[in-house]
C-alpha cells in the first residue's frame, strides 16, 4: 500500500468500517510511515473538536420569541375538545 492508496481508504479506516484485510494493510503501512500516522491522528482530532460543544449562543431576543411561538402552538394543539 502506498500513501496515496491509504488516502482512499481513510474514511473507512477512521470510521472503523474498513474490511479486515485492508485494515491490516493500512496498519502495516502506518507502522512504517510517520506522515500517514500523523494525518490520521489529525483527522480524528479534527472530527472530535467539531463534535464537541455548541459553537453559537442563542440570541436572547430570539429565545423569548421561540418560547412565545411554542406556547401559542401548544394552546392551538391542546385546546379542550
Amino acid at each position, binding site marked *: 500500500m502506498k500513501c496515496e492508496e491509504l488516502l482512499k481508504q481513510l474514511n473507512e479506516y477512521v470510521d472503523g468500517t474498513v474490511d479486515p484485510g485492508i485494515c491490516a494493510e493500512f496498519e502495516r503501512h502506518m507502522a512504517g510511515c510517520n506522515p500517514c500516522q500523523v494525518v490520521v491522528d489529525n483527522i480524528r482530532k479534527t472530527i472530535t473538536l*467539531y463534535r464537541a460543544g455548541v459553537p453559537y449562543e442563542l*440570541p436572547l431576543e*430570539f*429565545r423569548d*420569541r421561540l418560547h412565545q411561538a411554542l*406556547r401559542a402552538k401548544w394552546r392551538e394543539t391542546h385546546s379542550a375538545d
Partner: protein
Amino acid sequence: MTELNPSATTDLELVHRAKAGDLAAFEALATRHAERVYSLALRMLRHEQDAEDVTQQTFLSALESLPGFRGESSFSTWLLRIASHAALKVIRKRRGLDLTSLEAVTEPAEEFGQIPHPEFIADWRWSPAQLVEQHETRRLLEEALARLDEKHRLVFLLRDVEGFSIRETATALGLSEGNTKVRLLRARLQLREQLTQALGDPATRLTPGHHEH
C-alpha cells in the same frame, strides 16, 4: 404543574410529561436543546435569520410530532434530524429547486484521484480536551468550516457532526453514496489542513511521505 429540576430530569422523562400535556416539560426540552439546533442550522446556512427560522420550525414540528416519537433514537438525535431536513429545505429553496436533488446543481461525480494530498503534516500542540477549553478554538473551527464549499460543508456536518450514516447523508442530500464519500474525504482533509496550519507544532513537521510498504 409538577416541579421541574431541569438538570436532573432526563430528556425521556420530559418527553413523557410533555406527551401527557405538560407544557413546562416541553419548554424545558426546548431550553435544553435550542442552542444545539440553532448552531447546526447556522453552520449549515451561515445566515442568522434563516437559522432562527429553522430553529423555530424545528421545535414547532417537534411539538406536533411528539405523539409519534417512540424513543427509538434519543430525543436530541430525533430533533437534529428534523432540524437538518428543515435547513436543507431552505438551501433548496435558495437554489430555486423545489424538493429536487441538490446534486442537480453540482458538477459531475468527484473522483478519489483528484483528492489533494496533505501538505502541512505535524502533531498538534494541544490535545482536543485542552483546545475545547480555549476561547480561540471556536473561532478557528468556525472559520475553517466557513471556508469549505457548501457541498463539502453539508456532508461533513451531517455525517461527522450529527452522526448520519453515509447512506442517510446521501439520501438527505440527494447524492450517490460514492459521491458522498468523496466529498466527506475532501471536507475532512481540508479541515485537517487548515486546523493543522494553525495548531500544528512546526518542530514536529514532516514532509509528506512517498512510502511503499
